[in-house]
Protein backbone atom coordinates (compact mmCIF):
# COMPACT_ATOMS: atom_id res chain seq x y z
CA UNK A 1 0.00 0.00 0.00
CA UNK A 2 1.20 3.51 -0.81
CA UNK A 3 2.12 5.08 2.51
CA UNK A 4 1.69 8.64 3.72
CA UNK A 5 4.99 10.47 3.88
CA UNK A 6 6.58 12.31 6.79
CA UNK A 7 8.98 14.89 5.42
CA UNK A 8 11.63 16.30 7.71
CA UNK A 9 12.24 19.97 7.02
CA UNK A 10 15.46 21.83 7.73
CA UNK A 11 15.21 25.61 7.62
CA UNK A 12 18.66 26.91 6.83
CA UNK A 13 20.13 30.37 6.81
CA UNK A 14 23.79 31.14 6.10
CA UNK A 15 24.41 27.42 5.85
CA UNK A 16 23.15 26.65 9.36
CA UNK A 17 19.92 25.00 10.50
CA UNK A 18 17.89 27.58 12.38
CA UNK A 19 14.73 25.58 12.88
CA UNK A 20 14.41 21.84 13.03
CA UNK A 21 15.71 19.38 15.50
CA UNK A 22 18.70 20.07 17.65
CA UNK A 23 19.84 16.57 18.60
CA UNK A 24 21.82 16.90 21.80
CA UNK A 25 24.36 14.25 20.90
CA UNK A 26 25.35 15.77 17.59
CA UNK A 27 28.64 17.59 17.87
CA UNK A 28 27.46 20.22 15.43
CA UNK A 29 23.70 20.49 15.91
CA UNK A 30 23.34 23.20 13.28
CA UNK A 31 25.00 21.30 10.46
CA UNK A 32 22.41 20.52 7.74
CA UNK A 33 24.26 17.43 6.50
CA UNK A 34 24.46 15.84 9.95
CA UNK A 35 20.83 16.62 10.71
CA UNK A 36 19.58 15.38 7.36
CA UNK A 37 21.38 12.11 7.88
CA UNK A 38 19.93 11.75 11.38
CA UNK A 39 16.41 12.35 10.09
CA UNK A 40 16.84 9.83 7.28
CA UNK A 41 18.20 7.24 9.72
CA UNK A 42 15.31 7.82 12.10
CA UNK A 43 12.72 7.15 9.40
CA UNK A 44 12.03 10.40 7.53
CA UNK A 45 10.54 9.47 4.15
CA UNK A 46 12.06 12.53 2.58
CA UNK A 47 14.20 15.49 3.60
CA UNK A 48 13.65 19.07 2.49
CA UNK A 49 16.17 21.82 2.96
CA UNK A 50 14.84 25.35 2.68
CA UNK A 51 17.20 28.28 2.49
CA UNK A 52 14.77 30.65 4.15
CA UNK A 53 16.63 33.89 3.53
CA UNK A 54 17.99 33.29 0.02
CA UNK A 55 15.09 35.06 -1.68
CA UNK A 56 14.90 37.98 0.73
CA UNK A 57 18.70 38.41 0.61
CA UNK A 58 18.55 38.15 -3.20
CA UNK A 59 21.40 35.62 -3.23
CA UNK A 60 21.69 32.12 -4.65
CA UNK A 61 21.15 29.09 -2.46
CA UNK A 62 24.26 27.62 -0.92
CA UNK A 63 25.28 24.92 -3.37
CA UNK A 64 28.04 23.59 -1.18
CA UNK A 65 25.61 22.92 1.67
CA UNK A 66 23.31 21.09 -0.75
CA UNK A 67 26.18 19.00 -2.08
CA UNK A 68 27.40 18.00 1.39
CA UNK A 69 23.87 17.19 2.55
CA UNK A 70 23.00 15.17 -0.56
CA UNK A 71 26.06 13.00 -0.01
CA UNK A 72 24.69 11.87 3.37
CA UNK A 73 21.19 10.71 2.46
CA UNK A 74 19.61 8.07 0.24
CA UNK A 75 15.98 9.08 0.50
CA UNK A 76 14.41 11.79 -1.68
CA UNK A 77 15.98 15.19 -1.08
CA UNK A 78 14.23 18.44 -2.00
CA UNK A 79 15.83 21.87 -1.89
CA UNK A 80 14.26 25.28 -2.08
CA UNK A 81 14.72 28.95 -1.48
CA UNK A 82 16.07 31.38 -4.01
CA UNK A 83 15.55 29.27 -7.15
CA UNK A 84 14.99 31.91 -9.83
CA UNK A 85 15.89 30.25 -13.11
CA UNK A 86 16.38 27.01 -14.96
CA UNK A 87 20.12 27.45 -14.38
CA UNK A 88 19.60 27.75 -10.60
CA UNK A 89 17.56 24.54 -10.66
CA UNK A 90 20.14 22.74 -12.82
CA UNK A 91 22.89 23.65 -10.36
CA UNK A 92 20.88 22.17 -7.49
CA UNK A 93 20.18 18.93 -9.35
CA UNK A 94 23.85 18.71 -10.21
CA UNK A 95 24.67 19.14 -6.52
CA UNK A 96 22.46 16.15 -5.68
CA UNK A 97 18.96 17.52 -5.11
CA UNK A 98 16.19 15.23 -6.39
CA UNK A 99 13.53 17.91 -6.37
CA UNK A 100 13.51 21.67 -6.16
CA UNK A 101 10.80 23.71 -4.51
CA UNK A 102 9.89 27.06 -6.04
CA UNK A 103 7.51 29.77 -4.98
CA UNK A 104 8.29 33.44 -5.68
CA UNK A 105 10.02 32.85 -9.01
CA UNK A 106 7.12 30.72 -10.26
CA UNK A 107 4.59 33.42 -9.40
CA UNK A 108 6.72 35.99 -11.17
CA UNK A 109 7.23 33.78 -14.24
CA UNK A 110 4.94 30.74 -14.30
CA UNK A 111 6.65 29.41 -17.46
CA UNK A 112 9.61 28.54 -15.23
CA UNK A 113 7.58 25.60 -13.87
CA UNK A 114 7.22 24.17 -17.37
CA UNK A 115 10.85 24.82 -18.27
CA UNK A 116 12.14 22.91 -15.25
CA UNK A 117 9.56 20.13 -15.65
CA UNK A 118 10.42 19.62 -19.32
CA UNK A 119 14.12 19.41 -18.63
CA UNK A 120 14.12 17.44 -15.36
CA UNK A 121 10.66 15.88 -15.20
CA UNK A 122 7.57 16.90 -13.25
CA UNK A 123 8.61 14.69 -10.34
CA UNK A 124 11.47 17.13 -9.73
CA UNK A 125 9.27 20.23 -9.39
CA UNK A 126 7.59 20.93 -6.05
CA UNK A 127 5.50 24.07 -6.11
CA UNK A 128 5.47 25.78 -2.72
CA UNK A 129 2.30 27.73 -2.04
CA UNK A 130 2.28 30.00 1.00
CA UNK A 131 -1.41 30.55 1.70
CA UNK A 132 -3.23 32.94 3.97
CA UNK A 133 -6.98 33.08 4.44
CA UNK A 134 -8.52 36.36 3.37
CA UNK A 135 -10.38 38.40 5.97
CA UNK A 136 -13.64 37.57 4.18
CA UNK A 137 -12.62 33.94 3.41
CA UNK A 138 -16.03 32.61 4.46
CA UNK A 139 -17.70 34.67 1.71
CA UNK A 140 -16.18 32.43 -0.95
CA UNK A 141 -17.60 29.15 -2.25
CA UNK A 142 -14.35 27.37 -1.35
CA UNK A 143 -11.65 27.93 1.22
CA UNK A 144 -9.06 27.66 -1.54
CA UNK A 145 -10.70 30.57 -3.41
CA UNK A 146 -10.89 32.46 -0.13
CA UNK A 147 -7.16 32.11 0.48
CA UNK A 148 -4.44 34.23 -1.06
CA UNK A 149 -1.00 33.24 -2.34
CA UNK A 150 1.97 35.00 -0.74
CA UNK A 151 5.59 35.19 -1.89
CA UNK A 152 8.96 36.37 -0.59
CA UNK A 153 8.78 34.24 2.54
CA UNK A 154 5.24 35.39 3.30
CA UNK A 155 6.05 39.05 3.05
CA UNK A 156 4.17 39.93 -0.10
CA UNK A 157 0.59 39.23 -1.17
CA UNK A 158 0.11 38.39 -4.84
CA UNK A 159 -3.62 38.90 -5.36
CA UNK A 160 -3.84 35.31 -6.66
CA UNK A 161 -6.18 32.87 -4.97
CA UNK A 162 -4.98 29.41 -3.96
CA UNK A 163 -7.66 27.59 -5.98
CA UNK A 164 -6.69 29.05 -9.34
CA UNK A 165 -2.97 28.97 -8.66
CA UNK A 166 -3.00 25.30 -7.59
CA UNK A 167 -4.82 24.35 -10.79
CA UNK A 168 -2.45 26.43 -12.88
CA UNK A 169 0.75 24.99 -11.45
CA UNK A 170 -0.54 21.46 -12.00
CA UNK A 171 -1.36 22.31 -15.62
CA UNK A 172 2.08 23.82 -16.07
CA UNK A 173 3.80 20.64 -14.97
CA UNK A 174 4.43 20.83 -11.23
CA UNK A 175 4.74 17.35 -9.73
CA UNK A 176 3.72 18.15 -6.15
CA UNK A 177 2.33 21.03 -4.14
CA UNK A 178 3.77 21.99 -0.78
CA UNK A 179 0.98 23.95 0.86
CA UNK A 180 1.97 26.06 3.85
CA UNK A 181 -0.71 27.69 5.94
CA UNK A 182 0.66 31.05 7.04
CA UNK A 183 -2.19 31.33 9.53
CA UNK A 184 -0.99 28.18 11.27
CA UNK A 185 2.76 28.30 10.71
CA UNK A 186 4.57 28.53 14.03
CA UNK A 187 1.37 28.32 16.10
CA UNK A 188 1.57 24.59 16.97
CA UNK A 189 -2.26 24.68 16.76
CA UNK A 190 -2.45 22.02 14.04
CA UNK A 191 -2.46 22.02 10.25
CA UNK A 192 -5.14 23.90 8.32
CA UNK A 193 -7.09 20.73 7.47
CA UNK A 194 -9.99 22.36 5.57
CA UNK A 195 -7.60 24.26 3.28
CA UNK A 196 -5.38 21.21 2.79
CA UNK A 197 -8.39 19.07 1.97
CA UNK A 198 -9.73 21.63 -0.50
CA UNK A 199 -6.45 21.72 -2.42
CA UNK A 200 -5.86 17.94 -2.20
CA UNK A 201 -9.22 17.32 -3.85
CA UNK A 202 -8.71 20.05 -6.41
CA UNK A 203 -5.55 18.66 -8.00
CA UNK A 204 -4.43 15.20 -9.01
CA UNK A 205 -0.81 15.68 -7.86
CA UNK A 206 0.31 14.97 -4.28
CA UNK A 207 -0.21 17.70 -1.68
CA UNK A 208 2.27 18.13 1.16
CA UNK A 209 0.76 19.85 4.20
CA UNK A 210 2.90 22.31 6.12
CA UNK A 211 2.51 24.74 8.97
CA UNK A 212 1.07 24.32 12.43
CA UNK A 213 2.14 20.86 13.59
CA UNK A 214 2.37 20.74 17.37
CA UNK A 215 1.72 17.11 18.24
CA UNK A 216 1.14 13.69 16.74
CA UNK A 217 -2.62 14.07 16.64
CA UNK A 218 -2.22 17.01 14.27
CA UNK A 219 -0.62 14.64 11.74
CA UNK A 220 -3.45 12.13 12.21
CA UNK A 221 -5.90 14.94 11.48
CA UNK A 222 -4.15 16.26 8.38
CA UNK A 223 -4.02 12.78 6.84
CA UNK A 224 -7.57 11.76 7.80
CA UNK A 225 -9.44 15.06 7.47
CA UNK A 226 -7.02 17.06 5.34
CA UNK A 227 -6.46 14.24 2.80
CA UNK A 228 -2.80 15.21 2.63
CA UNK A 229 -0.43 12.86 0.84
CA UNK A 230 2.51 13.97 2.95
CA UNK A 231 3.14 16.25 5.91
CA UNK A 232 6.07 18.39 6.84
CA UNK A 233 7.63 18.12 10.26
CA UNK A 234 10.15 20.61 11.57
CA UNK A 235 9.90 22.01 15.06
CA UNK A 236 7.53 19.30 16.33
CA UNK A 237 10.52 17.29 17.52
CA UNK A 238 11.23 19.96 20.10
CA UNK A 239 7.92 19.34 21.77
CA UNK A 240 7.73 15.85 23.17
CA UNK A 241 8.04 13.69 20.08
CA UNK A 242 11.51 12.24 20.01
CA UNK A 243 12.00 11.50 16.33
CA UNK A 244 10.31 10.59 13.06
CA UNK A 245 10.11 6.89 13.91
CA UNK A 246 8.14 7.61 17.08
CA UNK A 247 5.77 9.90 15.18
CA UNK A 248 5.25 7.28 12.47
CA UNK A 249 4.57 4.55 15.01
CA UNK A 250 1.86 6.72 16.57
CA UNK A 251 0.29 7.38 13.16
CA UNK A 252 0.35 3.70 12.24
CA UNK A 253 -1.47 2.88 15.47
CA UNK A 254 -4.14 5.33 14.30
CA UNK A 255 -4.57 3.37 11.07
CA UNK A 256 -2.54 5.62 8.76
CA UNK A 257 -0.29 3.64 6.40
CA UNK A 258 3.35 4.36 7.19
CA UNK A 259 6.69 3.06 5.98
CA UNK A 260 7.54 0.94 9.01
CA UNK A 261 9.90 -0.59 9.90
CA UNK A 262 12.19 1.99 8.43
Amino acid sequence: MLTKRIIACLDVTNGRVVKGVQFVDLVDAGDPAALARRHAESGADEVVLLDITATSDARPILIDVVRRTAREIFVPFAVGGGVRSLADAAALFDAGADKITINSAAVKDPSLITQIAERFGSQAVVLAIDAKRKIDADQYDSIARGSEVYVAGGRRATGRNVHDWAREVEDRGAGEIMLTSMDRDGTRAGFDCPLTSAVAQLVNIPVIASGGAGNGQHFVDVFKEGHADAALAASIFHFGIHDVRELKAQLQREGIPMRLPC
Partner: protein
Amino acid sequence: MITVVDYRAGNLASVQKALRHLGYESQVTDNPEVVRRSPRIILPGVGHFSSTQRIADLGVNDAIREVVARGVPFLGICVGMQWLYEGSTEAPDVTGLGTFAGMVERFPDDPAHKVPHVGWNQLTRVPGTESRLLRDIPDGSFVYYTHSYRGPVVPGVVATTNYAGDFAAVVERDNVFGVQFHPEKSGETGLKMLRNFCEVNA
Protein backbone atom coordinates in the same frame (compact mmCIF):
# COMPACT_ATOMS: atom_id res chain seq x y z
CA MET B 1 33.66 0.14 -13.03
CA ILE B 2 29.95 0.69 -13.56
CA THR B 3 28.86 2.52 -16.69
CA VAL B 4 25.91 4.89 -16.26
CA VAL B 5 24.32 5.71 -19.61
CA ASP B 6 23.49 9.37 -20.10
CA TYR B 7 20.66 10.01 -22.54
CA ARG B 8 19.68 13.33 -20.95
CA ALA B 9 16.71 11.91 -19.08
CA GLY B 10 17.05 13.56 -15.72
CA ASN B 11 19.47 13.32 -12.95
CA LEU B 12 22.44 10.97 -12.88
CA ALA B 13 24.07 12.49 -9.80
CA SER B 14 22.05 10.51 -7.27
CA VAL B 15 22.78 7.14 -8.92
CA GLN B 16 26.49 7.91 -8.99
CA LYS B 17 26.40 9.14 -5.42
CA ALA B 18 24.80 5.88 -4.25
CA LEU B 19 27.38 3.80 -6.15
CA ARG B 20 30.21 5.83 -4.63
CA HIS B 21 28.73 5.34 -1.18
CA LEU B 22 28.79 1.57 -1.81
CA GLY B 23 32.44 1.78 -2.88
CA TYR B 24 31.94 1.36 -6.64
CA GLU B 25 33.51 3.61 -9.23
CA SER B 26 31.24 4.73 -12.03
CA GLN B 27 31.55 6.57 -15.32
CA VAL B 28 28.90 8.47 -17.26
CA THR B 29 28.81 8.08 -21.01
CA ASP B 30 26.66 8.51 -24.10
CA ASN B 31 29.25 6.82 -26.31
CA PRO B 32 28.27 3.42 -27.76
CA GLU B 33 31.93 2.30 -27.92
CA VAL B 34 32.34 2.91 -24.20
CA VAL B 35 29.13 0.96 -23.59
CA ARG B 36 30.50 -1.95 -25.68
CA ARG B 37 33.57 -2.17 -23.44
CA SER B 38 31.62 -1.89 -20.17
CA PRO B 39 31.56 -4.78 -17.70
CA ARG B 40 28.35 -3.56 -15.98
CA ILE B 41 25.75 -1.03 -17.12
CA ILE B 42 23.02 1.05 -15.50
CA LEU B 43 20.40 2.87 -17.56
CA PRO B 44 18.68 5.37 -15.29
CA GLY B 45 16.00 7.81 -16.33
CA VAL B 46 13.03 9.83 -15.24
CA GLY B 47 10.46 11.73 -17.21
CA HIS B 48 8.95 10.97 -20.57
CA PHE B 49 9.34 7.67 -22.46
CA SER B 50 10.08 9.65 -25.63
CA SER B 51 13.49 10.51 -24.13
CA THR B 52 14.51 6.87 -24.75
CA GLN B 53 14.47 7.67 -28.49
CA ARG B 54 17.81 9.31 -27.77
CA ILE B 55 19.25 5.90 -26.82
CA ALA B 56 18.69 4.86 -30.42
CA ASP B 57 19.79 8.22 -31.82
CA LEU B 58 23.10 7.87 -30.01
CA GLY B 59 23.56 4.35 -31.32
CA VAL B 60 23.62 3.08 -27.75
CA ASN B 61 20.67 0.69 -28.20
CA ASP B 62 22.67 -1.58 -30.52
CA ALA B 63 25.61 -1.47 -28.13
CA ILE B 64 23.34 -2.45 -25.24
CA ARG B 65 21.82 -5.29 -27.28
CA GLU B 66 25.30 -6.65 -27.99
CA VAL B 67 26.62 -6.50 -24.45
CA VAL B 68 23.42 -7.88 -22.97
CA ALA B 69 23.66 -10.84 -25.38
CA ARG B 70 27.22 -11.41 -24.12
CA GLY B 71 25.92 -11.66 -20.54
CA VAL B 72 27.00 -8.26 -19.21
CA PRO B 73 24.86 -7.31 -16.16
CA PHE B 74 22.42 -4.55 -17.07
CA LEU B 75 20.07 -2.60 -14.79
CA GLY B 76 17.32 -0.26 -16.00
CA ILE B 77 15.83 2.18 -13.49
CA CYS B 78 12.38 3.81 -13.83
CA VAL B 79 12.05 4.85 -17.49
CA GLY B 80 15.19 2.76 -18.04
CA MET B 81 13.22 -0.27 -16.83
CA GLN B 82 10.20 0.64 -18.95
CA TRP B 83 12.50 0.65 -21.98
CA LEU B 84 13.07 -3.11 -21.40
CA TYR B 85 9.46 -3.70 -22.49
CA GLU B 86 8.35 -3.55 -26.13
CA GLY B 87 7.27 0.06 -25.81
CA SER B 88 5.04 2.52 -24.00
CA THR B 89 1.73 4.14 -24.83
CA GLU B 90 3.36 7.37 -23.59
CA ALA B 91 5.35 7.49 -26.85
CA PRO B 92 3.98 4.78 -29.17
CA ASP B 93 6.46 5.53 -31.97
CA VAL B 94 9.48 4.75 -29.80
CA THR B 95 10.40 1.06 -29.47
CA GLY B 96 11.90 -0.49 -26.38
CA LEU B 97 14.42 -3.30 -26.12
CA GLY B 98 11.65 -5.91 -25.91
CA THR B 99 13.32 -8.19 -23.36
CA PHE B 100 9.97 -8.34 -21.59
CA ALA B 101 6.65 -8.71 -23.36
CA GLY B 102 3.96 -6.07 -23.50
CA MET B 103 3.47 -2.34 -23.45
CA VAL B 104 3.93 0.09 -20.58
CA GLU B 105 0.67 1.96 -19.95
CA ARG B 106 -0.59 4.89 -17.94
CA PHE B 107 -2.25 4.24 -14.58
CA PRO B 108 -6.04 4.16 -15.03
CA ASP B 109 -8.08 7.26 -14.29
CA ASP B 110 -9.45 6.61 -10.86
CA PRO B 111 -10.37 9.28 -8.32
CA ALA B 112 -9.09 7.09 -5.48
CA HIS B 113 -5.60 6.88 -6.96
CA LYS B 114 -3.75 10.06 -7.85
CA VAL B 115 -1.40 9.99 -10.81
CA PRO B 116 1.59 10.20 -10.60
CA HIS B 117 2.14 7.46 -8.06
CA VAL B 118 4.54 9.19 -5.69
CA GLY B 119 5.94 7.86 -2.46
CA TRP B 120 6.94 4.71 -0.64
CA ASN B 121 5.16 1.48 -1.53
CA GLN B 122 5.76 -2.21 -0.92
CA LEU B 123 7.29 -5.03 -2.92
CA THR B 124 5.50 -8.37 -3.20
CA ARG B 125 7.58 -11.26 -4.50
CA VAL B 126 6.02 -13.23 -7.35
CA PRO B 127 5.70 -16.83 -6.10
CA GLY B 128 7.90 -19.37 -7.81
CA THR B 129 10.38 -16.85 -9.22
CA GLU B 130 14.07 -16.52 -8.39
CA SER B 131 15.82 -13.17 -8.10
CA ARG B 132 19.47 -12.30 -7.65
CA LEU B 133 18.63 -8.61 -7.43
CA LEU B 134 16.30 -9.20 -4.46
CA ARG B 135 18.71 -11.41 -2.52
CA ASP B 136 18.22 -10.74 1.23
CA ILE B 137 15.39 -8.24 0.54
CA PRO B 138 12.38 -9.25 2.65
CA ASP B 139 8.94 -9.49 1.07
CA GLY B 140 6.99 -6.32 1.87
CA SER B 141 10.05 -4.03 1.82
CA PHE B 142 9.36 -0.37 0.99
CA VAL B 143 10.82 1.43 -2.01
CA TYR B 144 10.39 4.95 -3.40
CA TYR B 145 8.34 5.51 -6.55
CA THR B 146 7.55 8.48 -8.74
CA HIS B 147 5.93 7.61 -12.09
CA SER B 148 2.72 7.81 -14.12
CA TYR B 149 3.24 4.78 -16.38
CA ARG B 150 3.76 1.17 -15.40
CA GLY B 151 4.76 -2.14 -16.87
CA PRO B 152 2.35 -5.10 -17.01
CA VAL B 153 2.87 -8.23 -14.92
CA VAL B 154 4.32 -10.66 -17.49
CA PRO B 155 6.84 -13.54 -17.38
CA GLY B 156 10.10 -12.15 -16.00
CA VAL B 157 8.43 -10.01 -13.34
CA VAL B 158 9.82 -11.15 -9.98
CA ALA B 159 8.13 -8.56 -7.73
CA THR B 160 5.00 -6.47 -8.01
CA THR B 161 3.59 -3.42 -6.27
CA ASN B 162 -0.09 -2.63 -5.84
CA TYR B 163 -1.46 0.78 -6.77
CA ALA B 164 -4.73 0.80 -8.71
CA GLY B 165 -3.89 -2.86 -9.41
CA ASP B 166 -0.65 -4.83 -9.50
CA PHE B 167 2.17 -3.63 -11.73
CA ALA B 168 5.76 -4.70 -12.42
CA ALA B 169 8.13 -3.51 -9.70
CA VAL B 170 11.14 -5.67 -10.57
CA VAL B 171 11.88 -7.56 -13.78
CA GLU B 172 14.76 -10.00 -14.09
CA ARG B 173 15.91 -12.41 -16.77
CA ASP B 174 19.45 -13.81 -16.61
CA ASN B 175 21.71 -10.74 -16.68
CA VAL B 176 18.96 -8.18 -17.40
CA PHE B 177 17.39 -6.40 -14.44
CA GLY B 178 14.90 -3.58 -14.17
CA VAL B 179 13.26 -1.68 -11.31
CA GLN B 180 10.38 0.77 -11.66
CA PHE B 181 11.23 2.50 -8.37
CA HIS B 182 14.37 4.44 -7.49
CA PRO B 183 16.82 2.21 -5.57
CA GLU B 184 19.17 5.18 -5.12
CA LYS B 185 16.37 6.91 -3.17
CA SER B 186 15.01 3.88 -1.32
CA GLY B 187 17.18 3.96 1.77
CA GLU B 188 18.96 0.80 2.95
CA THR B 189 16.66 -1.46 0.90
CA GLY B 190 17.61 0.29 -2.31
CA LEU B 191 21.31 0.39 -1.49
CA LYS B 192 21.24 -3.34 -0.81
CA MET B 193 19.67 -3.92 -4.23
CA LEU B 194 22.30 -1.78 -5.96
CA ARG B 195 24.98 -3.75 -4.13
CA ASN B 196 23.35 -7.00 -5.26
CA PHE B 197 23.47 -5.75 -8.85
CA CYS B 198 27.11 -4.71 -8.54
CA GLU B 199 27.99 -8.17 -7.20
CA VAL B 200 26.08 -10.24 -9.78
CA ASN B 201 28.52 -12.50 -11.63
CA ALA B 202 28.74 -11.72 -15.31
